[in-house]
């Protein structure tokens, strides 16, 4: 198991937003984590990498316990989070953004060529400032930056957020390609259909708890998944 989370609780101030969640991701899997706005998906990912201190629970990455470590150490466990909203370094060039992605990778000069081959658009834009890329291009840059660290497991927080349908398809295709080349992916999404199409398994969160889990193909036809979104007044994302 590449990532194992047991009974994780976290929150802000005195407000608990994740109430004891357990999940796991095995090597080579794409695992979906679905849930309406405010379900606590981002908070869960943040506490897995250490941006938010977990209150309780256990986290193992590649068999090693990582709970309580500083966020900048998470990358040394071959785990990279691509955060919600991309978080591009706006006043660094595309090339610099990628090099920073490889900050802990001594082979960054070689790795950047691999990333450029994978996203030729980034090579074209190499000396442009990150902040001047379009939303879709920034998402590619965020993925490329994560790949610079040569991670084993990628945590993606809503990579399709704010992208046009064509671009969404491209991002999901890219995720499948990355998995086929040996990466493991935990994919947090609101786009239920697209996620269940590419994922092997998925979890569904509702207000801080996991209410459903199973094979993606089974969840596709489970009316409870739809309820988890619409019941919370979530927007219509079920096509």
């Amino acid at each position, binding site marked *: 198991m590449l990532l194992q989370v047991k009974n994780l609780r976290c929150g802000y101030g005195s407000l608990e937003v994740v109430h004891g969640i357990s999940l796991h991701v095995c090597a080579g899997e794409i695992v979906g984590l679905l849930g309406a706005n405010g379900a606590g998906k981002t908070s869960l990912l943040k506490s897995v*990498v250490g*941006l938010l201190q977990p209150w309780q629970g256990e986290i193992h990455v590649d068999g090693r316990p990582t709970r309580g470590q*500083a*966020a*900048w*150490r*998470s*990358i*040394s466990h071959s785990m*990279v*989070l691509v*955060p919600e909203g991309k*978080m*591009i*370094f*706006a*006043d*660094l060039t595309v090339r*610099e*953004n990628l*090099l*920073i*992605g490889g*900050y*802990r990778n001594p082979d960054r000069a070689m790795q950047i060529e691999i990333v450029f081959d994978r996203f030729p658009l980034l090579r074209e834009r190499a000396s442009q400032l990150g902040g001047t890329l379009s939303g879709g291009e920034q998402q590619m840059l965020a993925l490329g*930056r994560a790949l610079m*660290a040569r991670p084993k497991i990628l945590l993606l927080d809503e990579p399709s957020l704010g992208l046009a349908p064509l671009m969404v398809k491209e991002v999901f295709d890219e995720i499948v390609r990355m998995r086929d080349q040996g990466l493991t992916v935990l994919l947090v999404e609101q786009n239920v259909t697209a996620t269940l199409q590419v994922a092997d398994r998925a979890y569904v969160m509702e207000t801080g708890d996991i209410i459903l889990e199973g094979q993606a193909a089974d969840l596709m036809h489970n009316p409870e998944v739809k309820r988890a979104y619409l019941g919370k007044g979530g927007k219509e994302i079920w096509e």
Partner: protein
Amino acid sequence: MESGNLELQYFLSGITKGSIYAVVAIGFNLIYSATGVLNFAQGEFVMLGGMVAVTLARFVPLPVALAGAVVIVALVGCLLEILFFRRLQRHSILHLVIITIGLSIVLQEIALHLWDEKVRSLPYFTGNEISTLKFLGAAISPQVLWVLATVAVIVVLLHIFLKYTLPGRAMRAGSSNPSAAMLAGINIANMRTLAFGLSAAIGALAGCVISPITMTHYEMGAPLAIKGFAAAIVGGLGNPMAAVLGGLMVGVLEAYSVSRLPAAYSDVTVFAVLLLVLFVRPHGFWGRPGGESVREH
């Protein structure tokens, strides 16, 4: 002809003072963009640099004394960050400003006790106080060239560091987006310490080269911090290279004011122009709206 030379003389003296303001302003900017702290103790690094170098120069050759002063003051800068700012990241910008003003006073007091209230200075690096070079009819001290060259080297090296080295890029990444930088494996807390250390080091170096010309005194830091702050604001906070132009502007303004108005008006002139600039360009000459510190994100 004579008055033309005099103008040039004032201009050169303005550029010399201004280049020291520029270094203080660069230090302001480095710390501000890396940590969000407006460090009003910045001028004390200049004072300490001069003081430590003067003392060391009694025991070791001048170049060794300068290097020693820079290293010691850099360590002081790192120590200040670790002791006072590392744990205070969540405090408001106003609290932090007050802490830096407090630190500035404490550092002055410490300097007064370690040394005394006497004015001292380093020897001229080359020649002595009466040696001059002729430049377009104006007489300048070789030390002025030392100041200008040192500041130019600081600016160029800093530019190379920030633009072309991995730690420099990491520092900029940390200012641009601290969370994303941490996710890339950058130890942000250490980057902030490094920013304080660097800032203190360049301040100390400036304090050494200027010492033969303006002398070193335990109270010299505070006015430098104010002028350096003005320079950083005029140039545009968040842009270290703009700080250089801001510093030179403040220095030249001051020199011309001294040449035409009673000496007491020089600060008034500088700050009147500062206010004017801020009316017309609220983000300074080269600052961008939105180019704010990490603290506001």
